[in-house]
């Protein structure tokens, strides 16, 4: 009988890389938080499906809990935790996967970008690898360079062209910046741009980062927008986390990031399937 687990050398590399990432965060003064996996309000997004569990939900990300902790006065926090997203499958997806998120006050996404390059570099160094400086590319410029076109205005068509022609060509570690304001998710918006970035490596999205919203009213409006979109698409709306709404704005300018640990490991060890780097049930 096959044991259906990754190769021992891959699990060893995974542990070494995670220890280095965790060590980097500790060295920078981040406090490790055990984020709750069972939540009343999952991340309220149009395109994320939370798994119901025990009258509540399994979290799709530790984002909301960490932002509440950030507002409580701890200025630097992180969590490494399994997350769950329904209806996602294939070589680059698993319903259960591991997320590394960190948040800190006193910077926006620009400071988180430097954190991210340093943390990924530390994880790579633990495996004897030295990564080149990460590239920086604007969202619209990525379309021009790799799809030969301006980004379509329709968000679905923009995503379709992105997954077909742009994402597969983002091979070197690359930060995508300057997302248009209407692709802001939960990031703050300045002028025409959302203050956020994503990290790609080997044609795979590894991380998403924000300059955090500071306006409770704006967060409530985005929740309402997302729930309306969910209802229009025939999906159930999610309850609003009022504690998070209260937390927003109780801290100074802050930035945060969600990094997919399994995907990072895939790129560090050269695996093409998430099942080759993660023990699954």
């Amino acid at each position, binding site marked *: 009988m096959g044991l259906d687990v990754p190769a021992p050398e891959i699990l060893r590399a995974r542990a070494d890389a995670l220890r280095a990432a965790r060590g980097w965060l500790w060295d920078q003064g981040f406090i490790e938080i055990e984020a709750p996996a069972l939540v009343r309000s999952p991340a309220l*997004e149009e*395109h994320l499906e939370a798994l119901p569990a025990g009258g509540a939900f399994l979290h799709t990300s530790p984002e909301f809990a960490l932002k509440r902790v950030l507002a409580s006065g701890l200025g630097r926090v992180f969590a490494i935790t399994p997350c769950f997203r329904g*209806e*996602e*499958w*294939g*070589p*680059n*997806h698993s319903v259960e996967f591991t997320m590394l998120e960190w948040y800190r006050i006193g910077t926006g996404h620009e400071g988180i970008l430097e954190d991210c390059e340093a943390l990924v570099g530390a994880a790579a160094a633990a495996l004897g690898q030295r990564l080149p400086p990460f590239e920086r590319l604007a969202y619209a410029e990525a379309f021009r360079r790799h799809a030969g076109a301006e980004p379509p205005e329709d*968000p*679905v068509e923009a*995503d*379709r062209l*992105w*997954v*077909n022609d742009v*994402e597969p060509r983002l091979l070197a570690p690359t930060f995508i910046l300057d997302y248009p304001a209407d*692709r802001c*998710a939960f990031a703050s918006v300045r002028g025409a741009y959302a203050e956020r970035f*994503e990290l790609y490596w080997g044609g795979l*999205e590894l991380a*998403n980062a924000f300059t955090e919203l500071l306006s409770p009213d704006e967060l409530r409006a985005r929740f309402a927008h997302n729930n309306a979109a969910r209802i229009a*698409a025939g999906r159930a709306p999610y309850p609003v986390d009022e504690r998070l709404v209260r937390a927003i704005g109780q801290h100074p300018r802050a930035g945060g990031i*969600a990094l997919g640990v399994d995907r990072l490991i895939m790129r560090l060890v050269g695996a093409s399937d998430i099942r080759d780097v993660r023990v699954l049930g």
Partner: protein
Amino acid sequence: MANVYETSDFRNGLKVLVDGQPFSMIYFQFVKPGKGTAFTRTKLKNLLSGNVIERTYRTGETLEAADCEDVEMQYTWNDGETYYFQNTETFDEVPVSKQMMDGAEDFLTDDIIVNITMFNARPVAVSLPNFIEAKITYAEPGAKGNTATNATKSATLSTGATIQVPLFVETDEVIRVDTRTREYVSRVNTK
């Protein structure tokens, strides 16, 4: 109303209609930007022309099912350009061009039963059984003393195919072949 497939129904071998043409799905993969819409990327092979196209479908979009039917047919004969099969129930004869055989002609044993995909009463694809047994009509002599376990040599089968076989396999032996990979599987004991 026509049958439709959701993206969650996608699988290899699915027969679908795109722009009125029948296609067989030969590849599919779920892709989803973290903050965006979920899609399934596909590669579709046109059953009439053999051309492969790439299409990406958003979750919620549907594909119309191509009204295809797989029919068991028995191989009868060929004239080098056209291969003739007989419907085992109606005894109708169905001609298939060499181009549509797409390599399957290399593994036609006498009276073999194959699956022929019919679209609008026309054959559009031929599927062999996954495994066939065939006699080796010529195999190069095995080099004496070569004990490398993965060493192979060329052998020609009674069906016409030339494949790689292990050094110990000899002319006139019957072997089992995987028609999907065109690879040797085992010797068949005919005694």
